[in-house]
């Protein structure tokens, strides 16, 4: 844990960047042959969802955030790509293990567990960092929803 309180990081994720990445990935997906088949809608759904999350992770600052890293890693695992991230602080996992052993009994740790399951990459974070990442994640998610909504509005037939 840092000894000094740094100011809370509140970057605003950029809509344009996200829209750009997302549209690019969508057009990439469209070019695939198996994409437009009427069956297997679930596969298409999953692919689109994954594309959305990956583009969001890229727009939100790439590998500088823990949850974006986890998202990208998860996506890359399926395509068997090797993703390389700059390991800045391996100390985080050590702190996490220490705090885990210390108080899993506390009330707020139980609730933090639920949050950890939701936010990607939450298993490796301490509680205070987790909350900060959650705030940023919420911002990114709402931005993503807005952009996708506008796309759907624009593209759907009247």
């Amino acid at each position: 844990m840092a000894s000094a309180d740094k100011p809370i990081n509140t970057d605003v994720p950029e809509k344009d960047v996200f829209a750009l990445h997302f549209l690019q990935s969508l057009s990439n997906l469209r070019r695939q042959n198996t994409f437009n088949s009427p069956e297997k809608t679930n596969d298409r759904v999953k692919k689109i969802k994954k594309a959305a999350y990956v583009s969001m992770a890229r727009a939100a600052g790439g590998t500088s955030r823990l949850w974006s890293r986890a998202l990208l890693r998860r996506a890359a695992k399926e395509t068997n790509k090797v993703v390389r991230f700059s390991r800045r602080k391996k100390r985080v996992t050590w702190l996490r293990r220490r705090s885990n052993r210390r108080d899993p009994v506390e009330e707020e740790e139980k609730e933090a567990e639920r949050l950890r399951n939701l936010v990607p990459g939450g298993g490796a974070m301490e509680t205070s960092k987790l909350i900060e990442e959650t705030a940023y994640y919420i911002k990114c998610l709402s931005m993503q929803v807005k952009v996708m909504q506008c796309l759907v509005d624009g593209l759907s037939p009247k």
Partner: protein
Amino acid sequence: MNSSLLTPSSSSSSPHHLQSPATFDHDDFLQNFFSSAPWPSSALDDDAPPPTSDSSLAGFHHHDVDSRNQITMIPLSHHNPNDAVDVNALYSGFSAGSLPFHFPQGSGGGVIKQSHTQTQSQATASTTTGGTAATPQTKPKVRARRGQATDPHSIAERLRRERIAERMKSLQELVPNGNKTDKASMLDEIIDYVKFLQLQVKVLSMSRLGGAASVSSQISEDAGGSNENTSGENQMTAKMTEHQVAKLMEEDMGSAMQYLQGKGLCLMPISLATTISNATCPSRNPLISAVKEAGVPLSPNTATTSILNGNGAPLVTVKDSSSVSKP
């Protein structure tokens, strides 16, 4: 008297090791210290050297306890005003024979060796317990604030808790309905909101495919955990739900409502649903086709946007037109 103390291990040190005074003479030395900067009080918060340490310096001078305390404490403040750890190093350094400052090294090593273990245990005891009432404090000491331990562990705990509370406050502004003061309910709200947003993304990614069947299959999948892949089965699932609900409604409205709620649906009149869907997105086909009742997703967890963004498949159709139930 003084010289007898200096000789035992004076082989190692020469009196000129001292940084501040030029010559090592006890009286001059002590007078230098006494006339130096006033005793700092804050730097010596937790590290009260025990009075028995003075016994190790007992032969040093025939000062009282206070001045002996001051003797040991002053070099610390003089050299490292903010380094509270140095006291420990000082005491542990005695046994090792090497001091962080070039204090009377020979004499310190020679005299302290007699009782260094006692000193060290006392030192560690006093530094960990910090400012206990057992040690008669000299005036420069600042006692710990009432109700707050100066134990480093609890300080870290307190810091951590404060940081968590501060971040939670900033989270509160992000989440709608963030006016709850209770931390537990605030966390619940946050978790629900994150789930809601994730579900929204999922539904939005579905809707652009124009797969109405996939929409309903996803809804039932979320509610019931079933996984249908083809559209035919999807509609059958939806129809089965409708039949089930209709059957239940004949017996007892309450159980029908409970069944629907278990699936995350609720009943509302058609007019209301069409009004909602028309109000928010006029360009969209109404999700509810011409039926008297329709089931809609109940809580934000099941994404009301599924109605508003889907492309025209009814969720629940009810055959009999007799009753209209309101949620």
